[in-house]
Every structure is written in structure tokens, then in C-alpha cells.
């Protein structure tokens, strides 16, 4: 089935249209490469053709990147390297062809898709929120292997280009024009014809590629010494940020440097070499797997019908409530109810500020900001929840308050409205006790800050009906979240596996480890934030409360929380929100970094300072998290290793390049995990007893995850 259509117009302009017959987007694959060589590449030498336009027939995609499944099917670095060389050869043919080629980009041009555009002589982009550019390979542990590291820098310079290559961040059309990534922008309608006009003008010599305005910094950076400085600075920054854990960014930098020093072909060759290696790396495999898992989770997980949500009510206008409202205003009208005017005003401010940021970045137009803000109804009246199809309660962690609100809500909404609590630790069944229609009560546990954190943990009780869970899942997906569904047990899933991990960090302090040593060790393992800094962020009050609850629930396994947190709380140390916790935070409005809070020593009754190896620290903390995850899987709280891995990565910062706790167990081997845990149990206590599931696996030699 043809994926490419070609047409030579009477005026000598050839139009090559990519249109995958079965998928909603275009992706690059060996099959596409072959077809391109056969049907489109000959146009480059065809005498009838004055110029070529390359376009996509898809509604909101130009080319979404390479087909990653192809990589998963490869078994050697050589295979992947060969694919990159083939692609580079073809794109080099395009770039060096005498026939001008114009890329008409409407929609997303990501990864390889951007590289295809970059190989063209002129890039015309549509000024539309759907049009977005990103050299996104780094996000799945790969390097651009189609000339991106060479041609992107050539177009936009080192200063603008390196961040795009190393972070994979997205650029919209207007900004792309500003930095020189594209040559011109136009309206989406009729873009192929506009591109044909540009192509004709290029062929006649009446149009040139746009020279970008080069700032002084740009000019300095393009001299050899300036270049060396910039690359060195980038390398240092990279090392600091990734702590050497991600192999892709340094490889990308190497490709850039090689190309600048030894010419584009050397750079392209280096791309292919690195690509082969990275494609086979564990890190890239784990990241690619996560990418697919997130996509799979965005589809409905059950056959149960979901009810459409045309009106959302949020109870509680605090940080969580306003965040939930923010991500929902693009979906439906939202009522936020709070008893405090200050909270309502803060919600209005937060929503407005979030919308204005989206306007500035070009994600939405100004009129859409006005529309979405108009959809927000801020009120103190409980009656305003009438007519809501979904009510999310996001008030304090107080069981009585939540129950009371549930009663008041039930009096005002239809029996088919879904009632969700954003609680992070209170049992949903306790909140739902006394509900007239418990089958529609569930938990929707968002993570802070809600607009940024991609995970939504949906918690169902024995009584929750499938349609209610399906409705929550569909709405969470519409909000842009990745949803996993877990059972209603203490701590659900994320809080439950996080708790022993955080608790152990405090235990280590009591044994004499330093705050920075513990946090740095975990960051060196790949967590973005250290456990003690995380406790400060979440709040020592919240942490103490959760630790107490879960400690009670799992005391039999030796998981009582330490008493350090309650004592710190008593002394007024709440973490970031009170300016002091395990760290001291600079006052609001002042700049500066956090520093270790020496006061913490007084709560520890610690012995003399004992230095522990990073490995020891990492083992004790990670294995507790992994073990708890295994308990959850064994008890059916989380329904699959895939769900458990995605939730830990997206919600708790488990290092993504390690794939998640279950992927990690498979990587090390259940046997090794069990042995190590038994050692730790002998030395430090029952809490390290391996979970039954791990013991089984150690014996059977099986894996948790297939793939």
C-alpha cells in the first residue's frame, strides 16, 4: 500500500505527499525509505521537474518521527547503524540536489520528521497551534540520526540549537521563525500551493533561504575558540544535570562537535555510529518502552462505557483544586467551590497565569484564553455543583470533612455523576461509607503541580462500577494525563511504595548519614529530586501523617515510620512551606539555593557521623520501593507491571531510563534482588523481607515483564 503520492504539475513543480494509509500520522520506517527511493527520489534528477514540494496529507502531523517499533525489532547495533546511514544518504541527496526542495510543514515535525524538513532547501511552516518542531530523540535515549545534529545547528546556531538537541523541547511556528529554524510562515489552508509558489521562485532564483539575524553571541560562537567554549560549557552543564546517567546527550554533543570540526559528513557518520549503540542501550530500551506504555494507557482500558463529562465541579480551591481546574478548562466548564474568598481569588490568579503562559508560548490563541477563563465559575455556593457530571473533591486530608462534602454533593447531583476524591492516603471506602450511590465513588489522585505532572492515579473500591472508572479514565486522558487504575488499599499504589523509601532515608540519617549524602546518592541513581528534599516539598506535615497511617497498616512487616518527622513537625519544621525542614529555603522573593538545615541533627539522636557508600544508600532505598511495588502487584492493587512502572516513573520520579521498579527487577534479576534483600534484612530488620512475588520469581527464574 503506497504511503507516498507524487504528482508533477504542469508548471514543473512536483508535489510529494506523505500519507500513511493505515495510521493517523506519518512515521519514518525502512518501508517508507524504500518507497521514497523508488517513487520520489528519482524526481530529484528528473529534467521535467523544476522544484519539489514535500508535504503531508495528515491533519495535524507533518512527520511524527521514526517508527520506534522498528528499532525494537532490531537485534544488533549494526542494524540500527545501517538504517541511520541509509537515511542520512538519502537526506544528503536531497540536501545537495540542484532541484530545490521545499518542505510544507503543517502539524508536528518531530525527531526524524524535523530532520527531513531540515534536509530541504526551504522550510515553510503553518502558523497554527498544531505546528510544532522538536528534535525529540533524546527523550527516548537516542540521538538524531538523520542529520539533525548537523543541519539544526547550521540553521539556528549553537546557542539556540544545543538546547533543542539536548532537551528535545518543542518550538512553535513563530518562535521557529524567530530563531531561523524555518524560513517563512503562512496560513495552513492551501499550504501546498503556497509552497509550490515558493518552490517556483526558488527555481527562478527569485527567492533565497532566510538568513537568520545573528546576535553578537552567535557570531562569537561560530568562531573556533567561541565554539569550543560553548561546547565545553554545554558539556559541563550536561554532566551536572544528568549526572552521567543518560548516554544520549553526550553522544549528541559529540556529533555536533565532530561535524563542526571535521565537516558535515564526519558528523553524519558519527551520528550513525552513536545511533547503533544507543538503539541497543538499556536506557533507550527502557525509555522507548515507557513511551509505548504511556500511549497504550491513553486508550480506554475497559470495554465499559464512559459517560461524557460536560461539566466538572471541583471542591476546594487550593493548590490542587486550581491545578485540576486549569487542566480541565480546555475540556468543559468548571465550577470551583471553596468557602474562602482568598482561595477563590488565588485560584483565579493561578488559572489566569497558566492560560497567559499558554498564550505566550503559542499553545492557544488569546481568544481561547478568554473563552477558557469564562468557563471557570468560582463560587462559595455548594448548590453550584448541581448539574456536574464529575465532582472532584480536593480539600484537606480530613475524613470527616470529605464525608460531609460527599453527603452534601450527593444531595445535589444526579445518581450518574461520578464523585472522586483527590485524597492521597485516606481510604476511598471510608470516604464513601454512607454514600447513597457508592458505585460512583472513586479516587482521582493527582500529583502536584497538576499542570505539569502527567500521572493520574484512579482508585477503585469493591463497589465502584466499571462505568465510573471508565468515565474517570476518559476524563483524565482528556485532561492530558496518563491514567492508571489501582485498588483501594492503604496508600493505594504511589503513596504506598513511596513511603518506605522516604522513611528509610530518615532512618539513614539516624544511622549517621548526611542529608546531602543521602539526597545526592539517590540523584546519582537517577531520581530528579533527593528523598529528603522531596519530603520537604510534599510537606513534613503530610509526610508525618502518611507515615503514621501506613506505618499502622503495615506494622506487621516492620514498616512503622520513624518518630523523627512528628518531632520535627512539633518544632514547626514543615519543609518548604514553612521555609525550614531538612533544608533551609531562601525567603519568598529572594534568590538563592536551599542549604542543609543544621537543626535536623537535634531530632535525630544520631550516633557519630557514619559515611556510607552510595551503593549502600541506593540499595536500601530503592529495594524498599521495589519490594513494596512487588507487594502491590502480588496483592493485585496494581493490575500489571506496566501500570506499576509507568506510575512510579511519572508520579514518583523513578528514573525513567531504568524503566520503573518492575523493569529494574528484571534488569538485575529477581534472584539478585532477593539475595541482597535477605542480607539487608539480617542486618537492618524485617522491613527488608522480600515480597512473596519476588521470592517466587527468584525460584522460577522468570521475569515480571515481557519486553
Amino acid at each position, binding site marked *: 500500500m503506497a504511503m507516498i503520492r507524487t504528482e508533477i504539475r504542469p508548471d514543473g513543480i512536483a508535489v510529494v505527499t506523505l500519507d500513511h494509509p493505515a495510521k493517523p500520522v506519518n512515521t519514518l520506517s525502512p518501508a517508507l525509505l524504500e518507497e521514497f527511493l523508488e517513487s520520489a527520489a528519482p524526481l530529484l534528477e528528473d529534467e521535467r521537474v523544476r522544484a519539489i514540494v514535500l508535504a503531508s496529507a495528515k491533519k495535524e502531523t507533518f512527520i511524527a518521527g521514526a517508527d520506534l517499533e522498528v528499532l525494537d525489532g532490531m537485534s544488533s547495533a549494526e542494524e540500527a547503524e545501517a538504517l541511520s546511514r541509509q537515511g542520512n544518504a538519502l537526506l544528503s541527496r536531497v540536501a545537495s540536489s540542484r532541484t530545490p526542495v521545499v518542505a510544507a510543514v503543517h502539524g508536528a515535525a518531530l525527531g526524524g520528521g524535523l530532520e527531513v524538513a531540515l534536509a530541504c532547501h526551504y522550510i515553510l511552516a503553518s502558523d497554527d497551534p498544531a505546528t510544532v518542531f522538536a528534535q525529540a530523540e533524546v527523550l527516548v535515549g537516542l540521538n538524531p540520526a538523520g542529520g539533525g545534529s548537523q543541519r539544526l545547528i547550521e540553521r539556528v546556531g549553537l546557542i539556540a540549537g544545543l538546547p533543542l538537541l539536548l532537551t528535545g523541547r518543542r518550538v512553535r511556528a513563530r518562535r521557529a521563525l524567530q530563531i531561523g529554524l524555518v524560513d517563512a510562515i503562512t496560513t495552513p489552508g492551501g499550504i501546498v500551493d503556497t509552497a509550490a509558489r515558493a518552490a517556483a521562485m526558488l527555481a527562478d532564483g527569485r527567492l533565497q533561504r532566510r538568513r537568520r539575524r545573528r546576535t553578537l553571541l552567535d557570531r562569537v560562537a561560530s568562531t573556533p575558540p567561541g565554539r569550543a567554549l560553548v561546547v565545553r560549557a554545554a558539556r559541563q552543564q550536561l554532566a551536572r544535570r544528568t549526572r552521567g546517567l543518560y548516554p544520549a546527550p553526550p553522544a549528541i554533543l559529540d556529533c555536533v562537535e565532530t561535524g563542526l570540526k571535521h565537516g558535515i559528513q564526519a558528523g553524519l557518520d558519527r551520528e550513525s555510529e552513536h545511533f547503533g549503540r544507543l538503539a541497543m542501550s538499556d536506557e533507550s530500551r527502557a525509555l522507548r518502552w515507557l513511551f509505548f506504555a504511556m500511549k497504550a494507557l491513553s486508550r480506554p482500558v475497559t470495554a465499559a462505557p464512559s459517560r461524557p463529562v*460536560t*461539566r466538572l465541579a471541583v471542591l476546594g480551591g487550593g493548590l490542587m483544586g486550581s491545578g485540576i481546574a486549569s487542566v480541565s478548562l480546555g475540556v468543559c*466548564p468548571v*465550577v470551583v467551590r471553596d468557602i474562602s*474568598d482568598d482561595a*477563590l*481569588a*488565588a485560584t*483565579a*490568579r493561578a488559572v*489566569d497565569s497558566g492560560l497567559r503562559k499558554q498564550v505566550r508560548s503559542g499553545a492557544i490563541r488569546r*481568544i481561547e484564553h*478568554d*473563552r477558557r477563563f*469564562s*468557563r471557570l*465559575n*468560582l*463560587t462559595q455556593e455548594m448548590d*453550584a455543583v*448541581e*448539574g456536574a457530571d464529575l465532582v472532584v473533591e480536593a480539600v484537606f486530608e480530613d475524613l470527616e470533612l470529605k464525608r460531609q462534602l460527599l453527603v452534601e454533593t450527593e444531595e445535589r447531583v444526579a445518581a450518574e455523576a461520578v464523585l472522586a476524591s483527590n485524597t492521597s492516603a485516606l481510604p476511598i471506602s471510608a470516604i464513601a461509607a454512607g454514600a447513597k450511590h457508592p458505585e460512583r465513588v472513586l479516587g482521582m489522585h493527582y500529583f502536584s503541580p497538576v499542570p505539569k505532572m502527567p500521572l493520574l492515579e484512579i482508585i477503585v473500591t469493591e463497589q465502584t462500577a466499571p462505568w465510573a472508572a471508565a468515565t474517570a479514565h476518559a476524563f483524565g486522558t482528556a485532561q492530558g494525563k496518563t491514567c492508571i487504575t489501582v485498588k483501594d488499599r492503604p496508600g493505594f499504589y504511589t503513596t504506598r511504595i513511596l513511603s518506605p523509601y522516604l522513611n528509610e532515608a530518615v532512618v539513614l540519617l539516624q544511622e549517621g548519614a548526611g542529608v546531602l549524602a543521602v539526597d545526592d546518592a539517590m540523584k546519582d541513581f537517577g531520581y530528579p529530586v533527593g528523598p529528603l528534599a522531596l519530603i520537604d516539598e510534599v510537606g513534613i506535615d503530610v509526610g508525618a501523617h502518611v507515615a503514621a497511617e501506613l506505618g499502622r497498616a503495615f506494622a506487621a512487616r516492620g514498616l512503622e515510620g520513624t518518630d523523627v518527622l512528628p518531632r520535627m513537625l512539633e518544632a514547626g519544621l514543615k519543609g518548604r512551606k514553612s521555609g525550614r525542614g531538612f533544608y533551609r529555603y531562601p525567603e519568598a522573593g529572594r534568590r538563592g539555593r536551599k542549604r542543609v538545615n543544621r537543626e535536623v541533627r537535634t531530632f535525630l539522636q544520631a550516633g557519630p557521623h557514619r559515611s556510607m557508600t552510595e551503593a549502600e544508600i541506593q540499595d536500601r532505598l530503592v529495594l524498599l520501593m521495589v519490594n513494596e511495588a512487588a507487594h502491590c502487584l502480588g496483592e493485585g492493587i496494581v493490575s500489571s507491571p506496566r501500570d506499576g512502572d509507568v506510575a512510579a516513573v511519572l508520579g514518583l520520579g523513578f528514573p525513567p531510563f531504568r524503566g520503573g521498579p518492575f523493569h529494574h527487577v528484571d534488569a538485575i534479576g529477581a534472584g539478585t534482588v532477593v539475595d541482597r534483600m535477605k542480607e539487608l534484612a539480617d542486618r537492618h530488620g524485617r522491613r527488608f523481607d522480600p515480597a512473596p512475588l519476588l521470592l517466587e520469581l527468584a525460584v522460577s527464574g522468570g521475569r515480571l515483564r515481557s519486553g
Partner: protein
Amino acid sequence: MVVDGCRTPFCRSGTAFRDLGTYDLGRAAVAGLLHRTRIDPHVVDLLVMGTVIADPHTSNLGREVVLGSGLANSCPAHTVTVACVSSLQSALDCVRAIATGAAEVAIAAGAETLSDAPIRYRRSIRRRLIAAQRAKGLGGYLRLLAGLRLSDLLPEPLALAEFSTGEVMGENGERLAKRLGITREAQDAYAARSHYRAAEATANGLLTRQIVPMFAAPSFAPMRTDNGIRGDTGPEKLAALRPAFDRRFGTLTAGNSSYLTDGASAVLLASEKAAQNLGLEPLATVRSSSVAGLDPLEELLLGPAVTIPRALEAAGVGLADVGVVELHEAFAAQVLAVLGLLEDETFCRERLGLAEPMEPIETGRLNAWGGSLAVGHPFGATGGRLIATCCDRMRHENARFGLVAACASGAIGIAMVLERA
């Protein structure tokens, strides 16, 4: 049928809403209406916006408000300007569209801000600026400066006076008060009562239903009440004020005249069938209406005196049967003038062609929850407030008929008879 009506709080110009434009105020009122009625925005198929002072950004404010408030792109909108009765005209446009089947569900909105105004260059500057677009070369531009005087650079004074007579409205109010012998004391007493009633109504929560809380940039602190009501204003306080329009012999003061206000209103109207299909519970039907033009010099503020009898006759309802009267208070003198003339035999016979004068409108029926003098008068929005208040009062006082009337610059008057649904 009038389904529901609401408004933003009304604020003295230059205070809480001074950073907002009519677009923001109008959007807030319409969004508030959509929230409280919970209708699907897509069912609204017409919006008419009444506004007086032109918004510098757009000439069809109604359409921009449609686009910015969550109504469907497919909802057409136009903007009407009839001075103080603009949103009554909006309502009539909606009623007629529904009656002819051009629309099933419509919103009659009104918005005004006096905290900002389009301040224009003088004609000599405007002429040069427009010519500058065609100027060629430095010489061309320099030639445009020829004949320019320094005084030309001053902004054009704002047009607050009647175009036809050159009189500011307050001056015409003086003319009326003197002609009809309306005393200072009567005016002050009336104004004080309006403030007192508005304050009581606010305190008793009677106005809460019609007000949509505003969360406005930049502070987003909620505004829930009108901020111009002075409940403690007694006749003695008012007596101390100096006349504003005739310094030596006048009786109209800032205290017994309406003040510059910012605010917006929105009223939802629907055909009976649409109301039924959507499960809405209308508040009232519009039984009749009357629009009249009068003499701009001697009758500028007397619109209601002509339109009230006509509307009542068209409805087949006697004034005695009307339980609720909401009359716009541009000036206390104007209200008293209208009331007096309606009871005056000569006026009724010679001007209205009536055999007998109208029955008196007792103070109990008239503006029981305060009026424009106290609550404020954002020109374009007042009509919507009168309709909303009338409907709320009819329900509260269990009245079958209500009467809404207002006068406007340009010597126009509109009156409507509403019947409780």
C-alpha cells in the same frame, strides 16, 4: 420569555473595575448567566449588546463578547446604542427575533465603563494623520505640519452634551426641575430613600441573586456587591451639597443625580418551546413594549411619561394592576417629574390623549430595592438590571405584572410590561 437575568456588581468609575474594559465586563456578565442557568452555550443563537461609549478595540462589542465568553462561533451578535436604554433595546431586539422565529434562545446584554473613554485627537490632527498615509518622502511629511497650531495637540473634549441642543443632561434636568417646580428637598428625599432601600436590599440579600461575583484582574479579589451605595446618606447630608449644573440657582446636585459607573448585565430570553425543551423555568413573559421619541429640549428625560401609558394600553393592563414598577433614576428630579406628569390631568389629556390622569404610583411599588441613583448607572447595562430586578421583585412580592421604564439621551423612552410566568 425572560428566563433569567444577572449583572456584575456595579462600581463607581475609577475604582474596582477601572482596569477592565466593556469586553471584560460584558464577558463576565454573559459567562455568569451561562453558569447560573447551566444551559449548553451552543443553544444561544443570538446576542444583542447595548453599550454607549465606544470600545476602542472593536465596533461590534456584542460579537467579541460572544467569542470570548464561551458562546458558539455560530451565534451572531450585533451591538446597539440608544444611550441609557441600550440594554432595554437589546431585550426588545431579542424579543422580536424570537417572535419572528429568527432565534430560539437569545441573550440581551449591556456593558459600560466610564473609567476609560476613547479620547480623540482634534480634527486638524486627524486630517493630517490620515493624509500621512499617502505622503511621499520627507517633504511630504513636512508639508503636513504646515498650519498646525499648538492648541491642535490638545485632546478633543469628550462629548457629554446632547448633540442636538448642546445641553449637558444635568442642565436639561435643571430645565425640567425649574419648569415643573420640583424642589431641592423633594429631590434629596427621593435620593436618600433610593440609597436607603438599596442598602437594605443588599443587607437582606435581596440583590444577591442577580449579582454575579467578579474575579477581575489584576488582583482577582472577588467583588460581590455594588460599591456606590451610601446607605447612611440622609437628606441632611445631601442638603449640604452644592448644585452641580446651575451653581447659583440650581437644585440638582451630585447627590441626587446618578453617578458614573462601570458594570455589565445579561438577560436570557427564550421562546416558550425552547424553554420547555431545555427544561428551563422562565421568570416572566414580555407582554408589551413601547418605544417613543420626544422633544430633546423640553422632554429629554420624560420618555417614561409617554411610554408607560402606551405599553400598559398595549398590554391591556391598568397601572393599578401592576404590582412592581422599576423606573430608571437618571436624576431624582427626572423621576419626580415623570411621576408628577403621569398624575397631571392636563399633561395626560393634551400630550397623551387620555381622558383621565394615570393612577399614582405609590412609593411602595416603585424601586423598592433602590434604583440607579444608589446602585449606579453604567449606561449600557442599566436596562438589564431593571429587567432582572423587576423579575426578582415580582417573585418576591408575588406580583402578577411588572413595569420597566427608562429615559435616554436623544429624548428616547422605552417601557416594557412583564407578566410573571
